[in-house]
């Protein structure tokens, strides 16, 4: 297998190609908002309806997805039913690492994550990205050192976004 050189771009394209309903969260969402904090993999919150689970399972099968950090002999059948029975999964795939969250701490499920999400056009596909205020809430709720370190910069970016929106409103009135 050739080395993966687009750790974030390839999994994004995979999800786009299979029209998986998901919201970009975590460090990649922070990067898209301009944060300099580094992400190591792609985290998404996915919709748990039957059609989407089937699309997700097909996408994961196409890149030989395997659960990360589990014993190699752990039985795991990658299909929509398995995804339905679980909630949060961490995969390693031929297209890079991919973390799938059914629920985001501090935010909720896909329905809460998609609400207010900002759509970005990336590599020919449209992806909803968790609203920056919810991203801040999620990172605060996660409470890990790496999340807390990212907060001051995200809060500065958010404050500036709000000021830009306010200025835009004033121009229009």
């Amino acid at each position, binding site marked *: 297998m050739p080395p993966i050189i687009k750790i974030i771009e390839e999994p*994004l394209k995979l999800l786009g190609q299979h029209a998986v309903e998901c919201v970009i969260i975590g460090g990649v969402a922070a990067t898209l908002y301009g944060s300099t904090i580094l992400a190591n993999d792609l985290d998404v919150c996915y919709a748990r309806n039957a059609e989407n689970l089937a699309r997700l399972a097909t996408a994961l099968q196409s890149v030989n997805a395997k659960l990360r950090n589990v014993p190699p002999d752990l039985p795991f059948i990658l299909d929509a039913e398995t995804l339905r029975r679980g909630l949060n999964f961490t995969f390693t795939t031929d297209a890079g690492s991919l973390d799938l969250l059914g629920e985001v701490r501090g935010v909720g499920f896909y329905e809460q994550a998609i609400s207010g999400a900002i759509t970005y056009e990336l590599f020919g596909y449209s992806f909803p990205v968790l609203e920056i205020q919810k991203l801040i809430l999620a990172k605060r709720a996660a409470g890990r050192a790496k999340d807390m370190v990212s907060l001051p*910069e995200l809060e500065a970016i958010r404050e500036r976004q709000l000021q830009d929106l306010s200025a835009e409103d004033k121009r229009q009135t």
Partner: protein
Amino acid sequence: MSVESEDYFLNPPPGSAAARAVEFGIDLTLTLENLRLTPEERIRKLDEFILSVARLKASARILGPRDAADNQNN
């Protein structure tokens, strides 16, 4: 990006979130650089950085204290 936005990150107003970020140790000039990029460029830059770190890790040799001292002397 507006002049006001650039100024916000380069000269954070006292009491602002940007001022608190600088106090925390964030270099907002790097944030500004990111904000000047398109979203796709931000992802590509992240990918390049991840790859660079992986290559660096793969090429690094761990030197013991004596080796490190020898290297510094050479």
